[in-house]
């Protein structure tokens, strides 16, 4: 069958790419489109480092085929910041919610999806929502604080 031609909208921009039928969306983003902000951790949907939003659903891009992205709307970490850092990114910095940083794009994309759905989540909701994002450095507490602070900031912009 060879490579397939796919068109999707990525971070608001129409993109075309060629991919193998069994190539993951994660590999397409990183290797074909140069969007290396999305990280590969486990490659089996356990760690959440490759989290992206496809058609308004938070998913692991390692468990999506590139060819499935035909006509899809995709948001990656590259689409989060504007001219300045997004408040979620800013709060992750302020709360030292990252150390090595490999898991951080996934956490930020997942947090953005959570706050879009639920602008005022309690701690338990945050912890369950982010249970699919693994961090081996922070011990999670700083991440939870950053998410709570980001939610406050987004609800009451300065």
């Amino acid at each position, binding site marked *: 069958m060879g490579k397939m031609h796919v068109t999707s909208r990525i971070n608001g921009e129409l993109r075309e790419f060629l991919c193998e039928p069994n190539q993951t969306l994660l590999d397409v983003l990183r290797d074909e489109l140069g969007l290396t902000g999305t990280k590969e951790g486990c490659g089996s949907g356990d760690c959440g480092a490759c989290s992206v939003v496809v058609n308004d659903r938070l998913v692991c891009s390692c*468990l999506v*085929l590139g060819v499935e992205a035909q006509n899809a709307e995709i948001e990656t970490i590259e689409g989060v910041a504007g001219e300045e850092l997004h408040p979620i990114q800013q709060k992750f910095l302020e709360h030292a919610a990252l150390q090595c940083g490999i898991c951080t794009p996934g956490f930020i994309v997942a947090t953005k999806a959570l706050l879009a759905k639920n602008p005022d989540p309690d701690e338990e909701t945050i912890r369950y929502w982010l249970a699919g994002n693994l961090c081996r450095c922070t011990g999670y507490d700083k991440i939870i604080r950053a998410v709570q602070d980001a939610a406050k900031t987004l609800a009451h912009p300065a």
Partner: protein
Amino acid sequence: MGAYAYLAPQSVQEALSVLDDHLKRGERAQILSGGTDLLVQMRSVDKTPRLILDIKQLAEANRLEVTDQSIYIGAAVPSALMTENVDLQALLPGLMEAADLIGSTQIQGRATICGNLCNASPAGDSIPAMIAAGAQCEIASESGTRLLAVEDFVVGVGKNALLPGEFVLGLTIPRPAARQKDAYLRFIPRTEMDIAVAGCGVSVSVDAAGQCTAARVAIGAVAPTPRLVPEAAAALVGTTLDEAALAAAGAACTAASSPITDKRGTVEYRRKVIAVLCRRAVAIAKQRAIGA
């Protein structure tokens, strides 16, 4: 076949004829819906190139309907979309809580309960809940669609009852009556993101006096396949779901189990825990049914 191929048919007929063509040529084709099991298998245990047949473009597989008579959950409906449905939350809280136990937010954005069923793991959380709810699979085949009760669908570890060329279109579930409610409980050693050591799905109907008029009980992760346990249901019907009835139903679940010892638990432990889960799940379903 030397390389992977991908196709997303627009009609059930097209999907069936592609499957049939591959069958006749002796080439492999596999159904893709949420992909949360399939993509993991493609990069680990089963790398053989094959046709990936994506059913997410099929209108039939995307059906999510609640009518006066029945509930339909298409094979392409992701778990998150299903559990967000307020009618389903009210009608089938047990099936919804089972689906909500499977994987993370990211997984639930893609995974489907029909995929959980087709994967046919002994520990698939949604399967005992489907059996308790009386779900039937709608199976598409060249000779038309056929219905098969979920308890007859899983035939072995990782093996389902689909014949070559068939695939699951969705699940049809009788709409629960006013005082009929379900519940699902599983045991895992942590609070989230793990595989069941044992799981129990129940559905009970009660009358105005609180007497149980009908019940279905199903067990998971304690036998090669999820199992319907009619003896447990029989122990509940005609009672007020009192302690003695719960204990008898739990004992029936233990008797119906044939677990293995593995890193998640021993035979003895699983046989004991399945009874506990049954008792607690019935108590939860009873409260829901009385409150309804």
